[in-house]
């Protein structure tokens, strides 16, 4: 319990450090939001002088003419008051934007995680039980290959094969545009239950499966390797011999004794891998035009929309931190030795 409280106490510190870094990094990028806005808004006959004049006006309007320090100060002040600001483009409220996009990203990453764990556990256990056979070799080879494939390549491949050639799956977005969907929580599955609209589920799954699998495959390859090593280690433990001595069947030994004890290193890896999964979701969401935080972040960066970049990065960091607190809790549930009285 103390461990978890400690972790939770660290969350604000992590977020402060991270937001500071993002604040600085985005301002170090060449180009500024004001020039972009001024150039974009100018008509064909605008001279360089017009654009410069506009730029100054816009800078003043956005508060970007103030010193970095005072910008940083008001940025922190806003965050403390849970105000993430509004977009330079269109003035949308960032909190509202995150409310729309964060559930989409959570759906995507959680689905990817589930797929990765299912595939990784199955193949990892299989490889461990069939150690040294061709099944083991094949599983590990496929695992390594999928682990090494970049997300964008997998995503594009998936789009071409399942979307363009086979026409089995939609390749863009999160739900069909024609669908009449009035988000309540913005989690489609939850809304489908709350609003009693089961017809939402299939289109949602259809859109989710390709990006989630794309994201999952590389992680699955990694999990396969960890699971295999971990299961092999536990299989050599004395208490497995005790289980055999009891006359248990191999499948009962696996279920009751091996899996739980080999899940600890796997859970650790899952927490850490969730970070790279979030990184991967930025790319995957872009490839699939999936309306998540990653997509929001990329557009924010391209447009130098500082508040969006800051808000999206904070949201991703918060998600990662919370997942790892959850992993710590899972640890305590799985291994009684870690529970201190």
């Amino acid at each position, binding site marked *: 319990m103390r461990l978890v409280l400690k972790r939770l106490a660290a969350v604000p510190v992590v977020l402060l450090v991270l937001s500071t870094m993002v604040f600085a990094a985005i301002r170090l990028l060449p180009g500024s939001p004001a020039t972009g806005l001024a150039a974009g808004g100018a008509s064909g006959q605008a001279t360089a002088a017009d654009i410069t004049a506009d730029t100054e006006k816009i800078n003043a309007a956005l508060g970007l003419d103030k010193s970095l320090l005072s910008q940083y100060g008001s940025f922190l002040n806003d965050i403390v008051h849970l105000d993430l600001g509004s977009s330079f483009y269109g003035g949308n409220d960032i909190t509202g934007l995150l409310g729309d996009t964060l559930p989409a990203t959570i759906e995507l990453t959680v689905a990817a995680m589930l797929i990765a764990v299912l595939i990784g556990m199955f193949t990892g256990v299989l490889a461990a039980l069939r150690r040294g056979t061709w099944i083991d070799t094949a599983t590990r080879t496929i695992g390594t290959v999928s682990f090494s494939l970049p997300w964008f390549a997998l995503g594009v491949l998936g789009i071409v094969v399942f979307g363009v050639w086979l026409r089995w799956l939609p390749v863009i977005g999160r739900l069909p545009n024609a669908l009449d969907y009035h988000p309540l929580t913005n989690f489609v599955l939850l809304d489908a239950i709350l609003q009693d609209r089961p017809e939402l589920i299939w289109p949602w799954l259809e859109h989710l499966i390709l990006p989630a699998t794309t994201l999952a495959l590389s992680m699955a390859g990694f999990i396969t390797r960890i699971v295999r090593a971990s299961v092999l280690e536990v299989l050599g433990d004395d*208490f497995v011999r005790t289980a055999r001595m009891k*006359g248990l069947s191999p499948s009962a030994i696996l279920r009751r004794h091996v899996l739980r*004890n080999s899940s600890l290193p796997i859970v650790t890896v899952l927490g850490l891998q969730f970070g790279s999964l979030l990184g991967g979701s930025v790319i995957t969401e872009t490839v699939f035009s999936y309306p998540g935080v990653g997509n929001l972040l990329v557009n924010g960066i391209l447009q130098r929309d500082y508040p969006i970049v800051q808000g999206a990065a904070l949201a991703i960091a918060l998600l990662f931190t919370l997942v790892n607190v959850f992993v710590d809790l899972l640890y305590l549930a*799985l291994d009684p*030795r870690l529970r201190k009285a």
Partner: protein
Amino acid sequence: MTETLLEIRGLTVEFDVPAGRLPAVAGVDLSLRRGEILALVGESGSGKSALSMSLVGLNRGPHAHIGGEVLFGGHDLVAAGEKELRSVRGKDIAVVFQDALAALNPTQRVGDQVAEMIRTHRKIPKKQARERAAGLLGEVGIGNPAQAARAYPHQLSGGMRQRVMIAIGLANDPAVLIADEPTTALDVTIQSQVLRLLKRLQADHGTAIVLITHDLGVVAEVADRVAVMYAGRIVESGTRDEVLFHPQHPYTMGLLNSVPRVDGPAVARLPAIAGSPLTGVARPPGCAFAPRCAFAHAACGDAIPPLMQRYGGSAHLDRCVLDRSRDALEVTA
């Protein structure tokens, strides 16, 4: 007391190792009678654990080659399939392992681990199995068994964990209990408590116990019969008193001489057997102990002496070809 329960005939256990095939057990004939405590004595690597694990096929695997026969209740357990063996394991023949902390599942409550043993062989409701498990924990001398049943192994002391291990072993009232160095990981006072517990359970339940140990003190305390193993073979066997008081094989004598005795002369250094036990793949054609034996002569290297009665009672067997009329063979300490 005389009914034979388990009969081992020509048992061999060989393991594939990088250097070739390691003969861990090189032909053992041994019988276990109902309700007796048979001590299997020897140094590390003498084959006593390999022997006992192969009784229930616990060392089966792609790199193990087990030959010979283990006859139990009319079945040959060496030839038996895994499924048949599973019905014997834990029900008719159970094992108490030495390092209970490692041998118990760290993520399962000990009561559940005992109950699992029961439910594997008897289809009774979980609740009933749990109650029976707590009863067993009480029987092996754990105070407040209901509370202990809910504990995880790491929350118990070493002695308690070993008692849990014994409770698991006894859960289905097996005919044979193999106790593999059950006291090695414990300190001396706990050791003797656990031994007395085994002795009492053997008396109460009529369980035959194969007690694997390298500790002759343990043998003296509880064993009915003793078999001494060296390099995969039994070099001497007989009743406890025959083997401990009239040892015939120089290896047994060496073991006895290396035990400190309260009533013996004070010595600066206990005598040890020179050299080290055979652990490699290659074995000499003659007596395996000859290279370390103080009494060895040329004939010892010719052939492996058979295990037979050479001195004393008809059940006292040994593998030494030396002339017994010589005083030199008497124990010196």
